[in-house]
């Protein structure tokens, strides 16, 4: 049970499901997320099981480690796993020059799954998400519409992707995905902060 004082960026949205399992959308709120920046030289990569191949990820000790760059990784774990993960990493990294930053709230995760997930996502990104090119476990940082995001292919039996997106862009991306999924039965979603219903500073 998470702290009732906590609120996720997409708390105001309900999970969406298109008919016949074509596509589903939900927020995976409060996942613990850390960005580790460290040189992969030496023992660090081996000890921490860092994926060193570009655009890949590894699962280790209940957390998923995403390659973000030659000296940059993201660790993702369950909401309550953050403290332990941070302590463990800190122990390993002790005297090594590194940066471990808590970004659990900087980002949230939107999960999109279902037969049409690929087709929908390709409306938003120029990156090739074809299963032959973007394989299970692959990771990429790219653009979705007008926001940047990280994507990881978590497919098991059914196509399933997580998009890791900044707090402030999460609602925009949620609605943009829903918009792209309308032809497969996702309901239209109105993004927050639109002119309708809100009052704006006038142009004059």
């Amino acid at each position, binding site marked *: 049970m998470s*702290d009732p*004082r*906590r*609120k*996720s*960026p997409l708390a*105001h949205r309900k999970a969406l499901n298109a008919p016949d399992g074509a596509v589903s959308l939900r927020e995976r709120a*409060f996942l613990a997320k850390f*960005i580790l*920046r*460290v040189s992969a030289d030496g023992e660090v990569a081996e000890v921490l099981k860092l994926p060193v191949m570009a655009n890949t990820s590894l699962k280790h000790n209940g957390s998923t480690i995403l390659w973000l760059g030659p*000296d940059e990784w993201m660790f993702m774990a369950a909401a309550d796993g953050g403290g332990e993960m941070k302590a463990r990493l800190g122990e390993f990294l002790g005297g090594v*020059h*590194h*940066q471990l*930053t*808590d*970004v*659990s*709230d*900087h*980002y949230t995760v939107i999960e999109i799954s279902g037969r049409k997930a690929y*087709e929908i996502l*390709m*409306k938003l*990104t*120029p*990156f*090739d998400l*074809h299963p*032959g*090119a973007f394989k299970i476990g692959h990771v990429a940082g790219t653009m979705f*519409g*007008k*926001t940047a995001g990280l994507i990881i292919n978590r497919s098991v039996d059914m196509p399933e992707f997580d998009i890791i997106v*900044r*707090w*402030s*862009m999460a*609602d*925009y*991306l949620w*609605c*943009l995905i829903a*918009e*792209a999924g*309308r*032809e497969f*039965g996702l309901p239209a979603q*109105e*993004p*927050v*902060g*639109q002119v309708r219903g*809100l*009052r*704006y*500073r006038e142009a004059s």
Partner: protein
Amino acid sequence: MEQAFRRARGGVVDRNSPVTFSFNGKSYRGFTGDTLASALLANGVHMVGRSFKYHRPRGIMGAGSEDPAGIVQIGKSAHALPNTRASEQEIYEGLESFAQNCWPSLKYDINALNDLFSAFIPAGFYNKTFKGPPGSWALFEPFIRRAAGLGKAPPEADPARYEHTNRHCDVLVIGAGPAGLMAALAAARAGARVMLVEETAQPGGRLLSQNPDSLKLDGKTPAGWVQGLEAELRGHEDAQILTRACAFGYYADNYIGLIENVSDHLPLPVRSENLVRQRLWHIRARQVVLTTGAIERPLVFHGNDRPGIMLASACRTYLHRYGVLPGKKAAVFTGNDSAWATAFDLSDAGVEIAAIVDMRKEPNPELLESARQRGIDVHLHSVITRISGRHRIRAALVQKLDGAGKVASGASALFCDLLAVSGGWSPNVALFSQSRGKLRYDEDIAGFRPGKSWQKERSAGACNGQYSLESCLDAGAAAGVEAARSCGFEAPPSRLPDIKNDRAQHFGHEAVWEVPSALPPHKTRAFVDLQADVTVKDLSLAQLEGYISVEHAKRYTTSGMGTDQGKTANMNAFAILAAKQGKSIPELGITTFRQPYKPVTMGALAGQHVGDFLSPRRTTPMHEWHEANGALFEPVGDWLRPWVFPQKGESFEETLMRETRAARSSLGVLDASTLGKIDVRGPDARVFLSRVYTNAWMKLKPGHCRYGLMLGEDGMVKDDGVTACITDEHFHMTTTTGGAAPVMSTLEDSLQTEWPELQVYLTSTTEQWAVISLCGPNSAGLAGELLDDLDPDPEYFPFMSWRNAHIGGLPVRVFRISFTGELSYEINIAASYGLWLWEKVMQEGAKYGITPYGTEAMHLLRAEKGYIITGQDTDGTMTPADLQMGWIVKKTGDFIGRRSLSMSALMEEDRKQLVGLLTDDPELVLKEGAHVIATPREGAKPVPMLGHVTSSYFSPNLGRSIAMAVVKGGAGRMGKPLFVTRPGLAPAPVKVSATDFLAMSQEKLP
């Protein structure tokens, strides 16, 4: 009679599915699978509009996207689609279509008078009016605008949705004719990711225009054989066929733009809100196979623009693909072999052939024999010199050519309602040429064909000048295999179908670009471009007036500049221009093929990124509260920040005054979450900060904060913010809201490329933290009540320091920093607790009359203190010295921008410098942006300008107006009078002052 021109059988239309549609208010019937053109022809309608300039009758001339003439308006009001090619628009139940550019009616059009005055509106008419006596354009414009043009733009906003999508593939095949089908299949069989795109509703291309009685592939009709291939292709998991999709742009790196029509062929009631109207595809292909076919050229002769004159190839398409007779009595006029097949097909379908008129002396004897067998009259070495029938051809005059190739005397009339013309074929090289491929002129086919490739593409079939069916199939299959192999697939050669063809294929021809006329040149009206109304005479005029370059001649005459991009006109125009200059065609050269190949709607180009999705609206964790509490919002970059929080019945000014007063007199609270935040860590962090900020960072102690300015390499202020020292190797940097992303990328770039030796890592944490800024004398009281374990008393927790603490057991970072000059506490908490803390702050602050304030009060409060806003008081041309902030530039040590600061131009004393302005009238609030001048009157223009007002407010706390301005030599003008211009009023007298108005108020402001 209903569909009097529909053949009894044949075509790929669904005869069990009749469709009712209308043209110009009259109801007609057609079948599903018809285009508007084929359905109109089935009802005997040829004339569908009036031309752009002369309002001459225009009919259906082609059968696809090449048609220059058959352009109509589809639908009404918001759904209106002007300039739609009848030959491309599929009919649907209830479709309404209208003739364009005519009034009061298609047949009796007032502006047809233009035609009589055509001598007065020749090529370059606009050019000449522009250059004419002053005012002549203004005089003519309203008339020209009314008379010229095509369809009418819809009067309402477009209700349709559009979207973009992306695909990557190994092999992209453009055009699903015989070559394209073979190419796609060969590549798909090799296991490649293949996309086959087809402009029309179904694959088949020119195969569907062949006579199914005379042509069999593997024993099947052309349509049957195509179906088999299509089915096999669809069976390949990684092969995709897109129909109604036109590749309109070939860009660098095999990046291709495609416009797919998703809903335009569906009846309006059936169109789903959830389905877009059109989809724009961004395709990145490793290899491209161009199988875009060839376009038949019309002939250029006197009167060649009359409705009922049609491309020979289009006649065959209507005959076989749509099962429509384009006429009852036809003549064929040509200089090449392929048009003879049209005559034979028409004849076999029961159309009476008035004659075949061939400009050559000796066409292929086999053709002559076939004509003889069918009893068709043949006129060799003859031309058509005159057409009768205004709205539809009734007869054509045939005349012999003499030994010199001139029109001989003596003529005979051919009575016909259809004239099929062919001037040969042009390979459709538009996309190849867009890809930067070099064209080469081939005398054998009298046309340009692909030469040297630039990108990873190959052309196969008719677009490569390979016209026979066998060569198309063969070249297509080979291209598919090669493309797949280039992607690393093993591709076995494809088997070609067995072809049984009763019709011998001949492609002999003799190019005659300008058909000899029986009239003197000034009386001959031979159209080169039927859409832009360009005649041979116009081309001659361009030549006479010195427009020698083909690019100039094109623009001067507008030839090839219509919505059809001169698909049928260009080759003829180039050849005629070349002949007039006594040059060969390759010597003259051709105009550049540019994207788009055919018109693309603005809606499709915008895609889904419109309206609510035009740009992301970034909101803070507290947005919900702001919205519920009546905030007026201000967009700051992509962010949406509360601007003011008006209470019931309160004006904007009243709100602003109340918020500003509260923050100084009691307690104000601001959502400052949008500020950029960067975590900086590493043993060299201090060195790094010292290089990116102008001041010194080596001695800042943990627990303390410092303000810094960042400059660009040019020495100009780019961003500012406060950075806190967490530990000796760990800093928390803040940037402006708008500067967060550019600062982060500049810093990361500097680390990676300029100073790789520095051991520093950066991570953006902007949205990790919700930031609540308490401001005012009561902020310490509230902070004390909120914080579990920190005494906020300024005595122990001084200005420009920070502490770790807890609220409700949750970790927070509290910063004693201020953007107002007032006692302030900035509380940072993990964003997911931001709303909870804000609500708690509001609740517990109630006893102090806590007042939420927005960006406007924030701006006013900081102006009272004289703090700058980068981007408002700076504009990318201000150095620290210009801002009178020379104190923040350290004396020794390098930093970004240091060297530029010592450039003589940046050290001049007369540069614009930031100063305060106090109006003589304390109630007068200057306009931001107003010019600062030295004299009490504006005087003669241009008035010498000393600078401008950057920030201006009425300060309720100071009881008078305050302003900041950048003024030439401002630093040396302290206390001096200046003037600020006002529209319609005398300039306002002001006195130059320092910018810290708050400090001055203690010494009493004037």
